[in-house]
């Protein structure tokens, strides 16, 4: 009687251990599967439009951040190259924030993000005369969802042709 009990309990312990180790953050697993986010930055292509072949029009940011990721820099380098080729085109960088913040601060955050992108373009030889910055804060989300993935798509700086 006691033996069977002990046996059962041992199995229980083993099973519990297995289950616990398997339970990594579900979210990370699901996002990784979708391949849309990495370290809170959107890496997908759903909402991305193209200025030209191989030149995505936008870069994405982590929550509250204005730092450019490696992927963002790649995108901006492509944009800079395209702008050098089309020297008559001027652009407006539109900065956006997700809805999980106060409205006024988000306006400033959007401006800072767009400015981050502008600075980087300038280091690749694009004159500041050709780039203007505009922030929409959280006013123009591209995805109306209320979830981390939607929010990550909204944290962006979009390069728009001005002429």
């Amino acid at each position: 009687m006691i033996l069977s009990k002990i046996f059962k309990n041992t199995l229980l312990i083993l099973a519990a251990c297995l289950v616990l180790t398997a339970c990594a953050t579900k979210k990370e697993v699901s996002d990784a599967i979708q391949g849309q986010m990495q370290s809170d930055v959107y890496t997908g292509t759903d909402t991305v439009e193209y200025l030209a072949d191989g030149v995505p029009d936008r870069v994405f940011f982590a929550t509250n951040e204005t730092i450019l990721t490696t992927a963002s820099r790649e995108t901006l380098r492509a944009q800079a190259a395209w702008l050098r080729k089309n020297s008559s085109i001027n652009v407006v960088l539109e900065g956006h924030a997700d809805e999980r913040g106060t409205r006024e601060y988000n306006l400033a955050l959007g401006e800072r993000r767009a400015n981050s992108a502008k600075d980087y373009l300038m280091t690749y030889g694009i004159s500041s005369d050709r780039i203007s910055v505009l922030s929409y804060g959280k006013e123009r989300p591209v995805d109306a969802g209320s979830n981390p993935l939607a929010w990550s798509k909204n944290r962006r700086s979009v390069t728009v042709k001005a002429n």
Partner: protein
Amino acid sequence: MKKNFLILFLMALLPIKAFALIEVDITRGNLNPLPLAVSPLSIDDKSKKSFEKILKKENIGSEISTIVENNLRTSGLFNPLNKEAFLQAPDIANLKPRFEDWNLIKAQALITGKVTYVDEKLRVEFRLWDILAAKEMMALAFTTVPSNWRRVGHIISDKVYERLTGEKGYFDTRIIYVAEEGPKTQRKKRLAIMDQDGANNKFLTLGNELVLTPRFNPTSQMVTYLSYFKNLPRVYLLDIETGTQEVVGDFPGMTFAPRFSPDGKKIIMSFAKDGKSDIYTMDLENRLVEKITNHPSIDTSPSYSPNGKFIAFNSDRSGYQQIYIMKSDGSDVKRISFGNGIYGTPVWSPRGDLIAFTKLHKGKFYIGVMRTDGKGERLLTENYYQEAPSWSPNGRVLIFYRETKTNAKGEGFSAKLWSIDLTGYNERLVETQTDASDPSWSSLLSN
């Protein structure tokens, strides 16, 4: 020696009364709203007909008393009793209420009054009675143009409120806000203004360009706000009466988060350039611009103290959004928010004693207040998303806005105005015709 002492002692004991006055400490009571009766204002037939013709209202006497009733009820401090139970007719009650009758229905105070049409004007007199003490507490009369009848109701409410709570009222006020419509990704926004009870709603802009964060000036005749006119986000001034709009200053970049100084002479706002936002003021008379903060961080949401000597603002110079206070010339910057979470939208109370704010912590938004030294932080309400509190002119009520979650398809978004009392009680929805956000409370109109 001993004898003397004994005599003294006995003498000291003599004047003692037979029984010491018994003292009983009453430290608790109930926080129930005060039950009072608002009797419809009595009106003579001739006046009644005149007003019916002019205002298209059948009984202006009961219309005005309804305004008073609603105001007192929404304040959360009063419980206006059901009119069906009233025993005395309005005209008799106004002359001399039979206090026992009103006592029967458990009313502790009574409002009665009379409306007359005199010299093409609306004349209202009202009385406030203390039922338990069986005496008159207050009697006032007003004369104004008939179209102002709603304001008379609000002014009476303010007087009654002040007499019964000791504080100035907030009913004769207006609220300016952003009326929203449309899909979340392409919202149409217009400036709108309404009476504090939702009546007299008017749209002030057409909705062709994005408008945000409108605020009244101290006389409530001008509004400053952010407009994306021609795709250039700038701070503007709007004259409510004439409707004229003008841009504030000539800044080479985005200006936003505007407010008026307490004397109405300056606009304080943020100016964003090259990735940083600083606080600036502009004098409306001589158009002189002054830079107040100078820091690589984002400094925004400035709010003056009522005496104009200090400014509370939002800065991320410590890494995350926190609340700071500085002198009005920008010196002596001090951080005052130290709790867990992110703090934003500081607003200084008109009483000068508290600062209201928005807080984000662990994915939840809070509206709270803290003392001006940062201590005594109290969170009043929690929600999925809410922000931007604005004070009523008596510093007792906060109005703010909430947004709802959308479902997986991105549907179900709505934005609404809410208000809450400083004590955390009486959280209620402020009805608006459309969705609404960014509310701002005017000062008392009758000053």
